[in-house]
C-alpha cells in the first residue's frame, strides 16, 4: 500500500504567539518548530499500517527549506521518503492544490492528514484535498485500520462516535486517541540522514484568501477573588451580577 502523510510544521505548543511588522506577520523569532501533533499521529498510524500490510509511507510538506529539520524528524520516526514543495503556505486552497498535484502524479492508496494544524487551525486540508481529487473522505478519525481489503474508521461526530468503512483510495484525518505517537530512536535518526527528501517547485499558485492582519487576544482584567469560605457566592455573582445563570 502506498500511503501519503501530509505534514504541517508548526510552532511548539508552548510558544507565546506574537506578531511583527504592524501585526501583519507571525513572529518566528526564537520559536521552536515541531511536527503538527495530529500529523505525528497520522504518521505513526501510516507506519503501523505499512508494517502490518506491506507498503511505503511518504511524507509531504508544503514549506520553505527551514522546514527540513522537522521533515528529517518524520523520516527518523519511520517514513520511507519525503517530498517538500518549495513554497510558503499562504492558505488552505494553495496548500491543498499543491498536495493534490502530488497525489495525482503518484497513485497513492491512502492519504492521511491531521484533523487540523495548530497554527492556522483551518481544519480545511482533508476536505479540500478530497474534493480536488474526487475522493471519499473520513474526517476526525480515532481509528484507522486496513482490514480484509477495506479501510475501517472510527470518527468523532457531534455528541458521539461513528464507525465507517470505505474501500481504497480514501483520505482521512487524524484525531487524538488514534494511537500513541512514535518517538525517533538512534537508529531511526541515523537512517533519516540518507533517506530521500525530494524538493519540487510549485507549479500552481491558486489561493482563495489573503491574511492581512493579526492580533492577540485582549488581556484579561485582574481576576476577582472569592473567599473560600463564601464559595457559594459564586452562584449569586454568576446569576445576579454577570447574569449568565438563571
Amino acid at each position, binding site marked *: 500500500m502506498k500511503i501519503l502523510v501530509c505534514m504541517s510544521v508548526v510552532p511548539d*505548543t*508552548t510558544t*507565546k*504567539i506574537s506578531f511583527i511588522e504592524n501585526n501583519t506577520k507571525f513572529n518566528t523569532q526564537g520559536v521552536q518548530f515541531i511536527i503538527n501533533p495530529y500529523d505525528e499521529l497520522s504518521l505513526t498510524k501510516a507506519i503501523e499500517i505499512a508494517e502490518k500490510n506491506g507498503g511505503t509511507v511518504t511524507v509531504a510538506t508544503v514549506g520553505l527549506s527551514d522546514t527540513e529539520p522537522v521533515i528529517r524528524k518524520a523520516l527518523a520516526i519511520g517514513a520511507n521518503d519525503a517530498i517538500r514543495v518549495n513554497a510558503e503556505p499562504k492558505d*488552505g*486552497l494553495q496548500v491543498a492544490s499543491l498536495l493534490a498535484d502530488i497525489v495525482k502524479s503518484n497513485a497513492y492508496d491512502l492519504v492521511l492528514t491531521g484533523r487540523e494544524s*495548530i*497554527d*492556522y*487551525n*483551518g*481544519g480545511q*486540508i482533508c*476536505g*479540500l484535498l*478530497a*474534493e*480536488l481529487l*474526487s*475522493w*471519499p*473522505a*473520513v*474526517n476526525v478519525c*480515532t481509528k484507522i485500520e486496513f482490514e480484509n481489503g477495506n479501510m475501517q474508521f472510527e470518527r*468523532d*461526530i*457531534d*455528541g*458521539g462516535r*461513528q*464507525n*465507517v*468503512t*470505505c474501500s481504497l483510495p480514501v483520505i482521512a484525518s487524524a484525531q*487524538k486517541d488514534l494511537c500513541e505517537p512514535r518517538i525517533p530512536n538512534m537508529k531511526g535518526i541515523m537512517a533519516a540522514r540518507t533517506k530521500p527528501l525530494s524538493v519540487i517547485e510549485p507549479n500552481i499558485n491558486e489561493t*482563495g*484568501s*489573503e491574511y*492581512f492582519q*493579526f*492580533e*492577540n*487576544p485582549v488581556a*484579561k*482584567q485582574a*481576576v*476577582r*477573588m*472569592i473567599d*473560600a469560605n463564601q*464559595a*457559594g457566592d*459564586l452562584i*449569586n*455573582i454568576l*446569576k445576579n451580577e*454577570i447574569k*449568565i*445563570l438563571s
Partner: protein
Amino acid sequence: MIGIYAEISDGKFKKSVLEAASYANQMNSNGVVAFCVGSTNDDEIQKLSKYGVNKIVTIGSISFDSQNYTQILSKAIQKENIQTLILANTYEGKSIGPRLSIALNASLATNVISLPDMNQGFSVKRSVFSGKGFAYVKLIKDTKVIAITPNSIDLIERPTSISIENFDGAVSENKTNITSTHKAEGKIPLTEAEIVVSAGRGLKGPENWGMVEELANLLGAATACSKPVSDMGWRPHSEHVGQTGITIKPNLYIAIGISGAIQHLAGVSSSKVIVAINKDPEAPFFKAADIGIVGDAFEILPQIIAAAKLNLN
C-alpha cells in the same frame, strides 16, 4: 443571496443553525435561503423563519457521506444563486464546508468569529493558533463559504415568512458506509455547550467526578477535562480540551483543579467568563480567569453545589 447550511440533528435544527441564520440575516442581502438534508417538521422550519430565513430548500434523507452531500448540496446551492454560504463549524460542517468551497469555486474561511467587514473587500476575523491569536483574512473569490465557531454569533431575530421547496437530485452510491453510530444520550455536546464544568488532575481520581457531574447537571453544563485526565483514562478523550484537544468557547467555563498550562488555556481562553478553583494561589489559571477561588476543591465544590440547588431554577 445568502445561504445557510441547516444541519439536522435528530429531526431538529441546533442552536448553531440559528447562529448561522443570525449571521446571514445581519449581512446586507436580499434574502436568506436555508439548505437541509433529511426530514424535519413545520415547527422547526418556522423556527428558522424567526431568524430571517425566507426560504428553505429540503433534500431527501441520504446517509451521511461528505462527497455525496457536497454533490447534491452544491447543485441546490448553485440553483439558488448563492454568493455566500454560512455553516457552523460542527464536525459535520467541518466535513462538508471545505468540499463545498471547491465544488462552488469559493473562498473558504473556517473558525470565523465575526461578521464580514466590507471596507476592504470582504474580510472576516477568525481565531488562529488555537485561540492564542486572531487573524483577519480577505476572501478574494466571488463566492464565499464561511464556517462560524459555535457560540460566537449572537442570536438576532428577524421574523419573516418562509417558503419551502424540495430539491430533487440524483446522487451516486455512497463510497463510505456507516456501520454503527454511538451517541451519548442526553448529554450536551461539548463544542456547543454554553456552560462547561471542567476538572483536572487536582481531583485525584475518576471516582471523584460525581461532584463535577452534579454541578454540571445543576448548571445545564457539559463536562470537560485536562489532557492528563483523559490520558490516564479517568475521563473519555472526547472531554479533553486544549491545544491538542477540543477548542471551546462557552459563555462560562469553570476549571476545577486545573493548573492552567499554556496548552490548556489555548483551548478555553476565548470563553466569555472563566472561573478557576485551585488550592494553589500561584496557579497560572488565576491569570487567565475572571473569577478565582483559592481552596480545596473537595471543600469548595459542595458549597457551590448547595448554593446552586438553592438559587437556580
